[in-house]
């Protein structure tokens, strides 16, 4: 292996409190050559995932009218690509719903074409 055509990326493992610093070497085709620094196998798996396709669950709030509070907490039904998180938050800032809402109700169907829906994480009864 020649060193100069490898690029190194670093990650912090979130698998346990040890927080191993992981390094991923990638060749110029974008393939992983080596993963260093993991204290256990979980770290290797995490590094691969974070390197190739990092994803996140998004939890935020949307505006709601007619409920006890003016905000309704929501979450994505599954993880979305990390680089779409900010755009997702931005899009959800434009959403307003009307009470009553039940936990699990779908607030947005297909978030930014990710195929992922956004659901309420609590009941919000209508205030009469």
């Amino acid at each position, binding site marked *: 292996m020649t060193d100069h055509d490898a690029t190194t990326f670093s990650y*912090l493992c979130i698998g346990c409190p040890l927080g191993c610093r992981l390094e991923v070497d990638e060749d110029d085709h974008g393939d992983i050559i080596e993963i260093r620094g993991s204290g256990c196998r979980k770290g290797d798996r995490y590094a691969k995932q974070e390197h190739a396709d990092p994803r996140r669950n998004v939890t935020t709030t949307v505006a709601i009218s007619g409920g006890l509070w003016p*905000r309704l907490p929501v979450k994505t039904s599954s993880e979305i690509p990390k680089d779409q998180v900010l755009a997702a*938050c931005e899009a959800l800032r434009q959403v307003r719903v009307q009470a009553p809402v039940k936990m699990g109700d779908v607030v947005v169907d297909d978030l930014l074409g990710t195929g992922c829906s956004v659901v309420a994480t609590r009941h919000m009864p209508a205030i009469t």
Partner: protein
Amino acid sequence: MIDDRPHVLHSKYDVVVAGGGPAGLGAAMAARTAGAERVLVVDREAEAGGILLQCIHSGFGLHHLGEELTGPEYAQRILQSALDDGVDVLTNAYLLDIDNDQNLKLLSTDHGLSILDTRATVLAMGARERTRAAIRIPGGRPAGIFTAGAAQRLVNLNGVLPGRRVVILGSGDIGLIMARRLAMEGVEVAGVFELMPHANGLSRNIVQCVHDFDVPLHLSTTVVEIHGRNRIDKVTVAPVDDHLKPILSKAWDVPCDTLLVSVGLIPENELSRELRLRLDPTTSGPIVSSTMETSRDGVFACGNVVHIHDLVDFVSAEAELAGGHAGRFASGIRPPHDNVRLQPGANVAYCVPHTVTTDQPHTVYLRVRKPLEKSMLRLRDSEGAVVHERRLRYVVPAEMVTLKLRPGVLDGFQGDSLLVEVVAR
């Protein structure tokens, strides 16, 4: 959160629980299971659920419920189960006092001032945020200084942003989670400043709250001055030396309109103090036996009011224990008194419960003072002999250590106190 049902307030209860967070609701359910007929939970807020209602992120329930939920989902689940179990919940109700005969003084929107007669009480009032560090910072007191939890409530419940450009002091999980929350709402987070050389939060929060949103994290750095006339307009920050003293010659200014202070939680112990319960100076919560009973007969306690828990799952486990014993106490069943006192030894800040018995299984929660990589948890008798030991992989102050004692473990132990230590292997 769940439509209010018409509420009658009785004058006699088997168990009254102060606080409707996960600790209080869990204890109430356990009291019902243990046979208590009439169980009432009172909470001063408009809805039960406690701090979880404002913790809209996920990370709750992995141990206790086997799935990862957001705070509001966890709260709603347990509230629903408590109501299904026949627990009465009264909100907008503040518990003021308990006298020696277990008469409770309650102030509520629906019923005004009431005196309730109860056989047992469970304290589950949770915690509040420390503000001491904020008070000590020199400079004026312009508007724009919040605790991280107060800001969390503003943003997640009231829908109000605390400012446009925010500095966060303290890298505990609440501070980190607020950094992400504000960044998501389009607020600029100018930086998180941490006095210690290591971040206090979970690595998961460092990655997903700080790195993901390109928030600058400055370790070994603190806020040394607050500036601004009416509204805060900047803070001065400085690195600290090995003795945590700021090096003022290296200070710099950070423009901001908001300062969030996130320097830890402290048990809500006003009521405990008024009741003259014996308190542990380290946890600031009441001293409790292995049944979670305080120094006052029939008054039990669980959750953050006893000691600060990082995981709600442990709160729920502790609540089950406290509520179960409160329920049995109400029907006149008392287990024998504890016979062993647990004393924090080397590198152990505190242990809860404070006493145990030798013939029952127990879960002991403890916190270390310093991080240690390969460590050993030891119980020693008063002569220094090792009674029990367990290897631990990695311990940090931010993560509670749990020690499960099976009945056999303390067999043959004769003394009346055990020293608990966590030392290098």
